[in-house]
């Protein structure tokens, strides 16, 4: 097994991203975001990107860095609370935002990766989300939701081996393995790159089949958004 998937840094791994392309970006709030890839995007001359990410950054951090550079034309996400930069652009319509219920969001991405073209779900029935969508009655009324694809996924894992098998830490997994399956090209940054066999086959969260490029990231901030500690009183 060669090292053909291994890149030296974010800049080299993101060499072919172009204006107008779509990028899925993993993470829940700031937990598990691809910090190095996002920083690299701030320095690449691209515009009119479509970004698919649960929060599009938060509290001025993460993807907000490229949002305030006006590089995003359209965003797919489920929650903009805690992201005033996005909420403001959404209300003044300087960016197009499609809000998607989070379970539908993750399932549309999973479906894209696994060859499911569309599925029926009760989520969103009777709400604004259902407008214009096909409705079918099962045990209860359901709406038709289609798979969501992207040109690239930028995700972070704690560990990868040389084939790109991934292991995620705690709740940092969230949307990342789904996005890796759904994108044409998946770029993974990791804190640790290990030899083949160093992650036990039983412990691999995502097989490297879905991963095209891997690099070891640096200078991780791993920001905590809301630090809450136990009350000792």
């Amino acid at each position: 097994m060669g090292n053909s998937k291994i890149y030296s840094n974010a800049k080299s791994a993101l060499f072919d991203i172009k204006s107008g392309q779509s990028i899925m970006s993993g993470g829940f709030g700031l937990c598990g975001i691809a910090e190095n890839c996002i920083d690299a995007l701030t320095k690449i001359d691209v515009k009119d990107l479509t970004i698919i990410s649960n929060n599009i950054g938060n509290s001025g951090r993460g993807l907000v860095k490229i949002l305030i550079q006006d590089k995003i034309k359209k965003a797919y996400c489920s929650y903009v609370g805690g992201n005033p930069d996005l909420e403001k652009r959404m209300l003044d319509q300087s960016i197009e935002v499609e809000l998607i219920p989070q379970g539908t969001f993750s399932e549309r991405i999973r479906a894209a990766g696994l060859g499911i073209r569309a599925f029926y779900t009760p989520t969103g029935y009777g709400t604004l989300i259902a407008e214009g969508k096909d409705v079918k009655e099962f045990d209860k009324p359901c709406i038709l939701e289609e798979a969501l694809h992207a040109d690239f996924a930028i995700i972070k894992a704690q560990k990868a081996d040389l084939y790109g098998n991934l292991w995620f830490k705690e709740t940092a997994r969230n949307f990342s393995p789904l996005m890796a399956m759904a994108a044409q090209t998946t770029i993974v940054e990791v804190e640790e790159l290990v030899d083949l066999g160093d992650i036990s086959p039983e412990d691999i969260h995502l097989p490297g089949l879905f991963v095209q490029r891997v690099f070891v990231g640096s200078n991780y901030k791993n920001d905590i958004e809301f630090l809450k500690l136990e009350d000792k009183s």
Partner: protein
Amino acid sequence: MSWTKEEMADEVIAMFHNDCSVNLGIGIPTLIAERIPQKKNIMIHSENGVLGVSGRPNKSSVSPTLINAGKETIAIAKGASFFDSSLSFGMIRGGHIDFCVLGGMQVDCEGNLANWMIPGAKVTGMGGAMDLVHGSKEVIIMMTHLTKKNTPKLLKLCSLPFTGKSVVHKVVTDMGVFKPHNGKFTIIKLAPNIDKVILQMNDLLN
């Protein structure tokens, strides 16, 4: 006298049976995780990908990758598990979560819930709420009884966009516990010294 947030949380906890699974929404509901008695043996689910939340960490166990859906640091119990967002929402949509407790802006007597946007003024997004209200076996809304302008949040019909249609089972406010039933609200319990006049729900009550 109205209930405090802690007393509201305890009213919700009293509805949980032993060994059940519970999803807690952002805001007041997260208070529940810190107050559930251990002996109830409840598994708390957070939709960002963890089953088995057990309250707050201490300084040595806190981890930036261990958070709840409100992006707050958490601790986990023995027997906890981590998973991706698709499996997490599969647990919800698939009907495997017994209770979800969400915040609300408005609930009406048809059981409709509004809690994700105020057109032209505020958009937070629905997050996982639209999935939770359709998947959980019982949907409990926890909110203050009155708006900042002192008008009730329990209405004949929600004026804000729905999060879900006919999905709410119970509402716990600082004034009481209510159940949408037959096109009106039934009072299940009132906080001390709260009467029907204070509730401002005259013709909406069964």
